[in-house]
């Protein structure tokens, strides 16, 4: 079955420190991949997406993600975290054929220490 896994439920980092959020996928073929951020009471905001081509993808708010086929991973990174980055982050995948539904991971809640 297709799945997206985010191994870390909670992550705490200090402001100014670097960040990496992990995402692994299981699909028959490489899916389209997305990272969304959800702040309390807010909807999901798209940070970045990977369809094909360059495996290092740049997004909004200084985020980037790297697609690694050999590891079935699409990890999200930021070199220097700001307090406003505290939120929940979701990785999602979509099959390249058939249905257009997204499959989401369970999310990683990021806490930023001042």
């Amino acid at each position, binding site marked *: 079955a297709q799945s997206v896994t985010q191994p870390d439920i909670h992550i705490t980092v200090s402001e100014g420190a670097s960040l990496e959020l992990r995402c692994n996928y299981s699909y028959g073929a490489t899916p389209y991949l997305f990272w969304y951020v959800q702040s309390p*009471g807010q909807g*999901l905001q*798209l940070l970045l997406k990977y369809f094909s081509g360059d495996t290092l993808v740049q997004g909004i708010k200084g985020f980037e993600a790297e697609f690694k086929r050999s590891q079935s991973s699409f990890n999200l990174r930021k070199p220097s975290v700001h307090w406003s980055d505290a939120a929940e982050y979701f990785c999602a995948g979509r099959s390249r054929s058939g*249905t*257009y*539904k997204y499959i989401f*991971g*369970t999310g990683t809640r990021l806490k930023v220490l001042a």
Partner: protein
Amino acid sequence: GAGVSQTPSNKVTEKGKYVELRCDPISGHTALYWYRQSLGQGPEFLIYFQGTGAADDSGLPNDRFFAVRPEGSVSTLKIQRTERGDSAVYLCASSPLAGETQYFGPGTRLLVL
């Protein structure tokens, strides 16, 4: 421009009641999706529409759930005989065409007492 909007933002109902949740997609978006997000979980797909027709309803949990999009724009998710387990945030998303990037609304938080 305006994003996806959902009404109401919060809905409290009693077990056994009927509820309707509304979604207004981004203007011009032909595809519309519904997801359900339970506490501590990621969103789970329910149904998506291409135009007026439901193209994939494989995520609807049972026949108490139904969704319509009669004019290809606004959609309503309908839940009959609500159960406490239906309590969740119901998210709507839209995309210009099916298969393109989905843009999400703020959700409707449903609480069934």
